[in-house]
């Protein structure tokens, strides 16, 4: 449907934060005073527009909720036509709401968190750039425009992780994130090329419309390439190594980009391409396998990290693994992948912002072994953190329970083994989250000498409260009042099957497993003393602390061979290419060195050579005349 009424303002959603970024980044120091507030304003206006569009969309019938806005013709090269055109349907609508609302809250939080930072105008410029790029990603109606947004969020992530660029660790982490992302981007660009060759177009309508006509091999190839792209952006195995290092960035960045929005772009890609994955069962299986592996990897890593942000990053990796599993399960799971994405976006942002609040009071220390007994001193932070923890663990009636249990149910509908894996991972989730809460807020105070923990200012705690309210009620709201299954069904399709065990029994088993994990962590970390120096730990603990040797594997498989290759190429260039050039110069030099000996300086030799030349000319003439 063409975009009319409020939907004609679709382009404004992207233009506003983009303009904000341009003004803040190009305006320079002149904008230092009011810059942050402009940054907040653009995203808040976007959120208001998004809510208005939601209300307008809800007024339409279920089949008429797709609005297209063609801004201009971007590429027209022979048969290849790509437009700068936006599409707002039910799937992009929920993403737009997540990005703008959670984004607004994080922008407001950053007013407080970054208030002492001299570069905060630049920070808000980059944040606005990110919001613009992410909105472009979800509103694009063709893969090429989506790729622009895809790269844009990668760029914003690089700029924001390395925001404190004078810190070598931050600069290295930013590079690492961008490079690993790039590997995934190869997948997306190759997929776009295969799509163009197969379907002649890269717009969603045409690709999904003619998906049935392509061979299964082609569709599987496209699906696997898209999976590679999703792995890079969503930090799934084998491209997961960048996410924990990305915690070098300021905490609002970790909350917005590496919890709520950018890392979910991979799930969006898979869900949007459901027409392809539905027809390529091998690719969908690969998606599920990757999701299960990452689900466990993230959870195990989160259990052993003492850095609160890195533990939360491991948790993000694991929860996105859940979403990827659900997306790979097909029509039974797409809806719940998005559902969990939305609830996760809210409670994970709440957890990260809460961690930032704790860090703010603990002089930016991230080591949980130096926390302890903070619940009396940071009441609001404690309360919101616990609510979000209960949500992520999947305790009813908080939002995570509804979304996670739906995924567990969908997993059992398809494959019992996958279902069991999701239940086990839920138990590990209970463990690491309870560990985090126990080490931070309970137990004995293990603070350093000059640390005086205090509650954060209202500009930071109010977003926390709002997110905690969302973490409580969003699940029930989306499921019962919003009917998320029927809302998303026209875009992704929805199926439901029966499972062997009754639904309530499955919920109970999951809950028991989660509470067992939580109880185990409680005894270990709240009842017993937490040592300030990390203990040596058993093999699994040490492996988890080293991120399951992900960095070492990357180093030996990719980094060292790259160094060998570049050293070989340098040697080849010096020895062979330079050698070839230098030796040809030497040959010419040697030849001329011999030739100049003709110039003896003796007049009579010159005279002789003239006579000799004349004789040769005469001989030649005579030969020509005679023949």
């Amino acid at each position, binding site marked *: 449907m063409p975009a009319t009424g409020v939907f004609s303002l679709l382009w404004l959603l992207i233009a506003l934060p983009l303009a904000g970024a341009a003004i803040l980044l190009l305006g320079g120091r002149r904008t230092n005073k009011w810059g942050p507030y402009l940054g907040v304003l653009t995203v808040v206006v976007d959120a208001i527009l998004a809510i208005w569009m939601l209300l307008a969309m809800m007024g339409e019938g279920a089949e008429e909720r797709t609005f297209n806005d063609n801004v201009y013709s971007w590429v027209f090269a022979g048969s290849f036509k790509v437009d700068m055109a936006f599409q707002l349907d039910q799937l992009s609508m929920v993403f737009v709401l997540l990005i703008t609302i959670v984004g607004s809250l994080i922008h407001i939080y950053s007013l407080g968190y970054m208030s002492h930072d001299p570069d905060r105008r630049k920070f808000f410029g980059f944040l606005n750039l990110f919001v613009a790029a992410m909105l472009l990603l979800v509103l694009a109606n063709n893969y090429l425009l989506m790729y622009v947004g895809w790269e844009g969020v990668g760029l914003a992530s690089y700029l924001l992780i390395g925001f404190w660029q004078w810190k070598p660790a931050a600069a290295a982490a930013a590079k690492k994130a961008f490079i690993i992302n790039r590997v995934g981007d190869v997948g997306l660009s190759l997929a776009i090329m295969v799509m163009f060759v197969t379907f002649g177009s890269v717009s969603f309508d045409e690709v999904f419309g003619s998906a049935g006509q392509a061979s299964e091999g082609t569709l599987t190839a496209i699906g696997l390439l898209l999976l590679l792209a999703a792995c890079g952006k969503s930090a799934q195995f084998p491209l997961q190594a960048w996410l924990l290092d990305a915690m070098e960035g300021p905490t609002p960045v970790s909350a917005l980009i590496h919890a709520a929005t950018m890392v979910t772009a991979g799930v969006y890609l898979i869900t949007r391409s459901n027409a392809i994955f539905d027809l390529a069962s091998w690719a969908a299986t690969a998606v599920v396998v990757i999701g299960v592996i990452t689900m466990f990897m993230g959870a195990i890593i989160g259990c052993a990290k003492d850095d609160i942000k890195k533990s939360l990053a491991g948790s993000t990796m694991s929860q996105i693994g859940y979403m990827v599993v659900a997306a790979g399960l097909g029509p039974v799971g797409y809806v719940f992948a998005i559902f969990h994405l939305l609830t996760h976006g809210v409670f994970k942002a709440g957890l990260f912002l809460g961690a930032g609040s704790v860090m703010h009071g603990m002089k930016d220390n991230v080591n949980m072994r130096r926390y302890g007994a903070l619940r009396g001193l940071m009441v609001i932070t404690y309360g919101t953190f616990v609510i979000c923890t209960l949500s992520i663990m999947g305790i009813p009636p908080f939002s995570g329970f509804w979304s996670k249990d739906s995924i567990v149910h969908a997993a059992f509908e398809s494959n019992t083994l996958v279902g069991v894996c999701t239940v086990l991972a839920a138990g590990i989730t209970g463990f690491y989250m309870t560990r985090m809460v126990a080490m931070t807020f309970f137990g004995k105070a293990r603070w350093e000498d000059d640390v005086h923990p205090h509650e954060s200012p209202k500009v930071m705690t109010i977003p926390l409260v709002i997110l905690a309210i969302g973490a409580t009620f969003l699940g029930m709201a989306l499921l019962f009042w919003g009917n998320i299954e029927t809302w998303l069904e026209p875009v992704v399709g929805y199926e439901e099957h029966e499972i062997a065990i009754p639904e309530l029994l499955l919920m109970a088993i999951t809950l028991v497993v989660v509470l067992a994990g939580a109880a185990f962590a409680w005894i270990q970390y709240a009842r017993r003393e937490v040592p300030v120096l990390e203990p040596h730990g058993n093999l699994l603990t040490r492996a988890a602390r080293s991120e399951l040797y992900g960095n070492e594997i990357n180093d030996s498989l990719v980094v060292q061979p790259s160094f060998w290759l570049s050293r070989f190429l340098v040697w080849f260039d010096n020895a062979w290419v330079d050698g070839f050039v230098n030796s040809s110069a030497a040959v010419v030099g040697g030849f001329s060195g011999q030739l*100049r000996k003709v*110039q003896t*300086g003796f*007049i*009579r030799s010159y*005279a*002789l050579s003239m006579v000799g030349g004349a004789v040769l000319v005469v001989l030649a003439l005579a030969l020509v005349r005679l023949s």
Partner: protein
Amino acid sequence: MNPSNYIILSALLFSIGTVGVLVRRNAIVVFMSVELMLNASNLAFVAFARMHGNLDGQMVAFFVMVVAAAEVVVGLAIIVTIFRSRRSASIDEPNLLKY
């Protein structure tokens, strides 16, 4: 008279002049040999003019004589200058323009 005799004479004079240029050490003598070569070619031109029956060869002979005169002026000036600084008229002496 057979004009080809003059051609043979011209060839002989030219060879004598060439050998003189190549063999003699004194710069003046080399110049004299060069004059001999020029005169030999003059003789050849005039003999050919006679053989062809027109005066083109004699015209060229005039040109050659003018050129020879100019060349002698310049060449002798150079030799005298060198002689003034080096006190030697040998053409083997000035060999500094070499590699």
